[in-house]
């Protein structure tokens, strides 16, 4: 699997797009989606709520387990992907595209986001 170069990553296996007009998109990586198995339920942060970098903001449930969703950035949630709420398998089939999870108006980023190459090495290790 390949991790898109233009994204940045967390050790909790979230990805973060570059902010456009201050708004960045968040999802989970293909590695995480594969590890979860078929995602059957997604609880995403509510639009208008504030998320904090490194803190839980939702959950993803698969056949076998439930995993907390962490926010890679701090800011206000401006969109949650209703397509994923309606069809959680999008997280498996298109984790970097149609399976994005939420968009956030970035107020602050942690220092330790990984590049694609760093994340590839981390998730392979």
């Amino acid at each position, binding site marked *: 699997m390949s991790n898109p170069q233009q994204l940045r990553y967390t050790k909790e296996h979230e990805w973060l797009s570059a902010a456009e007009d201050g708004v960045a998109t968040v999802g989970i990586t293909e590695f995480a989606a594969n590890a979860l*198995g078929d995602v059957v*339920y997604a609880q995403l942060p509510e639009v208008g709520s504030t998320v904090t970098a490194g803190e839980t903001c939702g959950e993803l449930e698969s*056949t076998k387990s439930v995993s907390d969703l962490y926010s890679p950035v701090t800011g206000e949630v401006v969109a949650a992907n209703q397509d994923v709420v309606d069809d959680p398998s999008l997280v498996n089939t298109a984790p970097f595209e149609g399976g994005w999870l939420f968009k956030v108006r970035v107020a602050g980023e942690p220092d330790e986001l990984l590049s694609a190459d760093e994340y590839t090495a981390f998730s392979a290790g």
Partner: protein
Amino acid sequence: MSTAPRLTALDALHRSLGATMTDFAGWDMPLRYASERDEHVAVRTKAGLFDLSHMGEITVTGPQAVELLDHALVGNISTVGVGRARYTMICQEDGGILDDLIVYRLGETEYMVVANASNAQIVLDALVARSEGFDAEVRDDRDAYALIAVQGPESPGILKQLTDADLDGLKYYAGLPGTVAGVPALIARTGYTGEDGFELFLKPEHAEGVWKALTEAGAPVGLIPCGLSCRDTLRLEAGMPLYGHELTTALTPFDAGLGRVVKFEKTTNDGRFVGREALEKAAERAETAPPRKLVGLVAEGRRVPRAGFSVVKDGVVIGEVTSGAPSPTLGKPIAIAYVDAAHAAPGTEGVGVDIRGTHEPYEVVALPFYKRQK
């Protein structure tokens, strides 16, 4: 003692197929190959191929083999004909369930007991201990067999291409020796999926050849390899208990709603068997003070109940989930739970499951969730 996981004869094949592996009772087993949902649907609609080599085979032979089994197990093994199989249990003196088992009668005085992987050593030790005084031999055959299951509506057609055995004459819960893909096998019409299907007990060195032959014969009708993950959702939909979840040493078969497997009217050993006194009391208790009942729960929402979650009504805990998963067939989360008898009737209003603090509404239904059309 080594803690390295045990590998089945098909291990290299699983890895070449890209399986996600998981530790299961000390064995490294395939959890899934690609999507567990696709694997589940394949077994319901076409066919699936499973490696179950972790199951524990124990052979019991000798002139008093049946007397030993009638003494050691709760079932009436005397009534099992040659070539037939029986679902039964082995209990402690206090009636607690040590394991649920399938016993195949392979010959006049030869039986094969198949135990769950996690309990195989416990069952073996118990059978050896209980064999004292009987003219019978208990043999650990765990390493003598690989076990491959082909399950699903297409499985008879697939297996027919590879065997001369009379599959049409082979009833559910029966087994006969034959050949599959040119090698000897015990062919049993058993499974744990709620579908028609076969379990093939083979020499480990023959497992890879038979797996490949089944894959080739089944591919045109949609057979795919399947892992333990979909096996769990298949058995859950079919309402089949899983040891460690619905069955434990803390429960007697009567507490588990499976009192029917206990046979007090045995003809051997003057009707005596291990656990008899405790089980008679458990049967009486079940009559006068109904224990918690095993029920099905179907979610109205989409959050999934897991083993150990509380079942609630009007803010009071009335039971506990023993198994839960999203059901691919129903398209909703389902669970098996022990619920106080007063709230166990199908259609009971106002029942919920506490999912991480939120009481999600659930419908109480009779088990199983799914029954195949015959």
